[in-house]
C-alpha cells in the first residue's frame, strides 16, 4: 500500500535555475502515472526527487504514510529502471538481481526463489549466468525490470527506460511493462518524452513544461480536453494544427476566418466564442479530425497538397491553406493524390479547439 503525494515541490539549482516549480501531485496506490514533457521540463528531476537521488529545495514528498524528504534512497522502498539500464557491469545477471536482496540480508534460498519467479516472468532463465555486456539492449532492460521486481518494492520508478531501444523493441517492451503492471500491481511513475508511451502506459498522464505541471488527467481527458495550447500540441501524433483566426459574427452565424479559410462554428463553440467577436483566437484542429471531401455546410476549405506521406495503412498530407501549413491524417491509403493537387478538406464538427492567444487557455462555453 503506497500512494505517493507531492506537495508544493520545488527544485532550484543554484540561484539561477528553477527546475521544478510548485508541483502538486497525488498518485493513488497501484496507479500507473506517466510524466511526460519535452526535455528540460523537470520530469526527470521530479522522479529523481521521489527516488531521493536529488535533494528537494522545498515541499514534501510522501510515500505511503511517511514523509520521505530526508530519507536516503535505500530507505524509501522503491525500485528504479534507468534509461541506460544501469546494470552492474562486473556482476552476472543473477548477482545483479540478487544485489538488492542481499543488501537486505535475505537468505540465499529466498533470493533464489524470488529470482526464479522474476526470471520466469521476464524470460531471463537462460541469461542468469551472463554478464550484462553479453546482452542486447532489450535483454538488459528486461534484467533491469527483473531487478526491480525481485525486491518487491512499494513503488516502481521508470526514467525513460525505453529511449535507448529501437522502435520495434520499444513497442514490445511497452506491452511487457503493461503486462507486468497487471501481474504485479504496484504504484508506478514513468517518465518519458514520448507522448505515445505516456498515453499507452499511463492510467493518468501528467504533462509538464518548464518545471510546471500543465495538466493531469486520463489519456482520454488530456487528448480530448487539453488544459492549454501546449498540451493540445504535445499530445497526439501527428501534432495538432494551429491556425491564427479571427472570430466574426453577422448576428446569425459565427465564423472563424483566416487567410484562405472560413469555417462556421455552431453550438457550444459559437457560445464560447461570443466574447471574442472581432478578435483573434488560435484554432486547433487535430489532423485526424480533418478529412478529404465536402463536409457539413461551412466546415470545408480548399487546401494545396505539398507533401504526401504514404504510410501503407493511411496517408498523411501536408497541405497549405493560404499561408498556413495544415496536416491532414487518416486519408485512405488507396487515395490517388499527388503533390500540387488541390483538395477539399472538411473539419469534423465539434472537434475544433479554440485558445486565447494571450493566455493560451482553451476558450470554452
Amino acid at each position, binding site marked *: 500500500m503506497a500512494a505517493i503525494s507531492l506537495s508544493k515541490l520545488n527544485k532550484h539549482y543554484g540561484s539561477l535555475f528553477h527546475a521544478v516549480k510548485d508541483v502538486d501531485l497525488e498518485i493513488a496506490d497501484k496507479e500507473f502515472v506517466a510524466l511526460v514533457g519535452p526535455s528540460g521540463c523537470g520530469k526527470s528531476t521530479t522522479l529523481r526527487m521521489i527516488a531521493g537521488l536529488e535533494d528537494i529545495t522545498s515541499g514534501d514528498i510522501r510515500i505511503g504514510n511517511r514523509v520521505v524528504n530526508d530519507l536516503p*534512497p535505500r530507505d524509501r522502498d522503491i525500485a528504479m529502471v534507468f534509461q*541506460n539500464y*544501469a*546494470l552492474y557491469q*562486473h556482476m552476472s545477471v543473477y548477482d545483479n538481481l540478487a544485489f538488492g536482496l542481499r543488501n537486505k540480508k535475505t537468505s540465499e534460498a529466498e533470493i533464489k526463489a524470488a529470482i526464479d519467479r522474476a526470471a520466469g516472468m521476464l524470460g531471463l532463465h537462460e541469461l542468469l549466468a551472463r554478464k550484462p555486456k553479453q546482452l542486447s539492449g532489450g535483454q538488459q532492460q528486461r534484467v533491469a525490470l527483473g531487478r526491480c521486481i525481485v525486491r518487491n518494492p512499494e513503488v516502481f520508478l521508470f526514467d525513460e527506460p525505453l529511449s535507448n531501444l529501437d522502435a520495434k523493441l520499444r513497442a514490445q517492451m511497452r506491452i511487457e511493462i503493461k503486462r507486468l503492471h497487471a501481474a504485479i500491481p504496484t504504484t508506478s511513475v514513468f517518465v518519458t518524452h514520448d507522448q505515445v508511451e505516456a498515453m499507452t502506459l499511463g492510467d493518468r498522464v501528467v504533462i509538464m513544461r518548464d518545471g510546471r505541471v500543465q495538466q493531469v488527467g486520463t489519456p482520454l481527458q488530456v487528448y480530448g480536453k487539453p488544459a492549454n495550447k501546449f498540451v493540445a500540441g504535445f499530445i497526439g501524433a501527428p501534432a495538432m494544427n494551429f491556425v491564427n483566426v479571427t472570430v466574426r459574427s453577422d448576428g446569425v452565424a459565427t465564423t472563424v476566418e483566416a487567410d484562405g479559410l472560413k469555417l462556421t462554428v455552431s453550438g457550444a463553440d459559437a457560445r464560447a466564442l461570443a466574447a471574442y467577436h472581432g478578435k483573434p483566437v488560435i484554432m486547433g484542429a487535430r489532423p485526424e479530425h480533418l478529412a478529404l471531401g465536402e463536409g457539413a455546410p461551412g466546415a470545408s476549405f480548399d487546401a494545396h497538397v505539398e507533401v504526401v506521406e504514404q504510410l501503407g495503412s493511411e496517408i498523411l498530407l501536408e497541405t497549405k491553406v493560404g499561408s498556413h501549413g495544415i496536416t491532414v491524417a487518416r486519408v485512405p491509403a488507396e487515395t490517388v493524390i499527388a503533390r500540387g493537387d488541390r483538395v477539399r478538406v472538411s473539419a469534423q464538427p465539434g472537434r475544433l479547439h479554440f485558445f486565447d492567444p494571450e493566455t493560451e487557455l482553451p476558450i470554452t462555453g
Partner: protein
Amino acid sequence: MPIVSRPDFLPGLPKWSRKTLFALALFGICFAFAFPVLWLILTSLRPESGVYYVHRGTEFTLASFAEVLTDDRIVSAFLNSALISTLATIFSLLVTVSSGYMLSRFTGPASRIWFGTIYVFRCIPYISWVLPLYFVTQSWGLYDTYTGLLLPHVAVHICFFSWLMKGFFDGIDPSMEYAAMIDGCTRWGAFIRVAIPSALPAISALAVLCWLFTWNEFLFALILTGNRVPMITVVMAQFVTEMGLRWNLMAATAVMALVPAFLVALFGQKYVIRGLRI
C-alpha cells in the same frame, strides 16, 4: 602488431613495396627505442677493460653482475626502491581513486577547491618542488627516511593522477551507482561496491603507471635521501667516481633495474591499454 598495409599509406606504390616500406619504418622506430637497451645489455656483459671497445671484443662475462649483487648498498637500494614504489602506489591509489571520483561526481565548493589546488600544484614545475621539500624534510626530521621520500611521492601522484582518475570515472555511467543506492547501498557503499569494481581496469592501469613512475624517479631520490635510504636510480648514478667511470657496473645495475620495470610493464600492459580506453 601485424604489419598491415594501409590503403592511404603512399597510395601510388604497388602493394608489396608499400608493405616493405611500412615494415622498414616500423623496424626503424623499434630499433631507435631498442638500440640503447641492447647497448646497455652488451655493456653490462663486457669486462671492465672492454667497455670502451664493445664493437671489437668478443670477451663476455657476468662478473659485473656478480660484483653488483654482492654490494650491500646496491641490494638494499633495490629493496628500497621496490618498497617505496609499492607503498607509494598503494597510498596514492587510496587517495587518487577517491579524489578522482569526487572530482567526477560532485560539483560542490569542496570539489572545486580541491580541483583548483591540484591544478595549481600540477602547474608548478616538478623541479621547483624539490628544494622546499628538502628543507621541510630536514626540519621535520624526515630527511633520508622512508616517510620523507614516500610522502612527496604520494603528493605528486595525487596531483598528477587524480586527473586521470577523474577522466576514467567520467566515462563510467553514474546511474549504476544510483541504482546501487536505491538497491540498499549508502553513497560510500555505491562507490566501493559498484564504482570501484567498474573502474578496476583503469585503477590497475594507474597502479602500473604509479609504480613505474616511482621506480624510475630520480630527482626526489637524489635530493631527499642520503646513505640510509639509497634508491636504485641514485645508486646507479654513483658509479661516476673520482677513480673513473665504472660503465660495466652501472650497466649491470641498470639492466637489473630494468627487469622489474619491464615485468610490471609487460604484465600491466593489458590493463593499461584497457584502462586507458575506458
